[in-house]
């Protein structure tokens, strides 16, 4: 099983809910992350992103005055943002397909549905570490390649035997319900003209 040391990781956490910030911050610290920068909305998050070295962003969607969707869009497209390719994990309680597609098209790397649990948060983090997506720039889009299917590691109790080694970089595999949601995140695909690309 793969092992990880998150001590050197600098995370920017953006959420307008003080309780959610505490929950996710506690989880990250328990995982070993020592540097967690915290912002209460997208606008503050942008300032922090330009002010600090950030390896990974975790952002909520529904915030005021600037929500997570606009934050992601600006990170990917605003020329004044220093790190347009920073990995972004969006967390939200909204799981509607149109929202997932909108977040994907704004340029998120991965999507995590609330409720956030230690297992599903760590699963997404490890997935982002082990399966980074190349970036794509077209006339209408800049962000992670939107086509690859996700296979998230799974830490739950109902793992079926014999399949773990293939799909899980950490030695576990994705649960069926999570896998379905994850597929919805990335299954939209680029325009037909781009689908001839071979990435890996």
């Amino acid at each position, binding site marked *: 099983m793969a092992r*990880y040391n998150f001590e050197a990781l600098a995370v920017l956490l953006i959420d307008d809910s003080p309780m959610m910030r505490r929950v996710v911050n506690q989880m990250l610290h328990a995982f070993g992350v020592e540097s967690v920068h915290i912002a209460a909305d997208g606008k503050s998050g942008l300032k922090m992103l330009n002010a600090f070295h950030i*390896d990974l962003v975790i952002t909520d969607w529904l915030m005021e005055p600037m929500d997570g969707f606009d934050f992601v869009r600006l990170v990917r497209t605003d020329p004044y943002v220093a790190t347009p390719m920073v990995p972004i994990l969006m967390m939200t309680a909204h799981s509607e397909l*149109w929202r997932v597609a909108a977040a994907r098209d704004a340029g998120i790397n991965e999507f995590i549905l609330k409720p*956030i649990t*230690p297992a599903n948060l760590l699963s997404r983090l490890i997935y982002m*570490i*082990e399966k980074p997506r190349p970036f794509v720039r077209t006339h209408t889009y800049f962000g992670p390649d939107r086509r690859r299917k996700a296979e998230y590691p799974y830490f739950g109790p109902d793992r079926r035997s014999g399949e773990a080694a293939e799909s899980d970089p950490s030695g*576990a595999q994705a649960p069926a319900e999570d896998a379905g949601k994850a597929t919805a995140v990335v299954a939209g695909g680029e325009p037909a003209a781009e689908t001839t690309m071979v990435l890996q």
Partner: protein
Amino acid sequence: MPDDDIKRTTINAGKNWCEMIETRNQLKERTATPDGRDPGEMIAEAGDQVASLTADFLDIVDDGTRAMQTLAAHLGTSPQDDDPLLARIYRIAHEVKGQGQTFGYELISTIGQSLCALLERTSPGEPRLTASIVTHLDALALVRARGITGDGGALGQHLANALWGEVEVVGGPPATGPRLSGGNQEGIEMPRLAVITPAALPEGATPARKPDR
């Protein structure tokens, strides 16, 4: 990131122009080490950390329920002010929905989800909306008063179905795009049962369980 660490490949030209940009996997370079920690250990430690916040979460639910009850009491007094009141109720319900299951209170999340769906799907001015909001808030207060944890078992399922029945009756069809400050919920089609009032829920709580890990 230095340009040497970025590989750019142009795939197509013209209107189908596309550039593929590949970079070093800096996340992996920083985190994946043989002397690192086992993910299972990290999850166990994080679960303990989350569990230590449970009392604070329940305070938020109780305060939020009272706040939503106060807001709901003002609905209809001057209809032009209803939209901001409903938006504030929605934000609180959304927070409850998003956090309950993290702490092992699935039924609280379910009620919050149902209330969010009600607010998203109901047309402004619908005369039954306030009563339906109050029913949801009564259910939330009841779950807390009786210390019901987890999904509430069969009783919780019955309550959830009844509330979803309210959403189906009072609310319109699920939205397919932005409306209010959210859209439709997960498109869950739950069976519509006869609506019960929270007061009809018998005494009893499901065994407490640890937060999901």
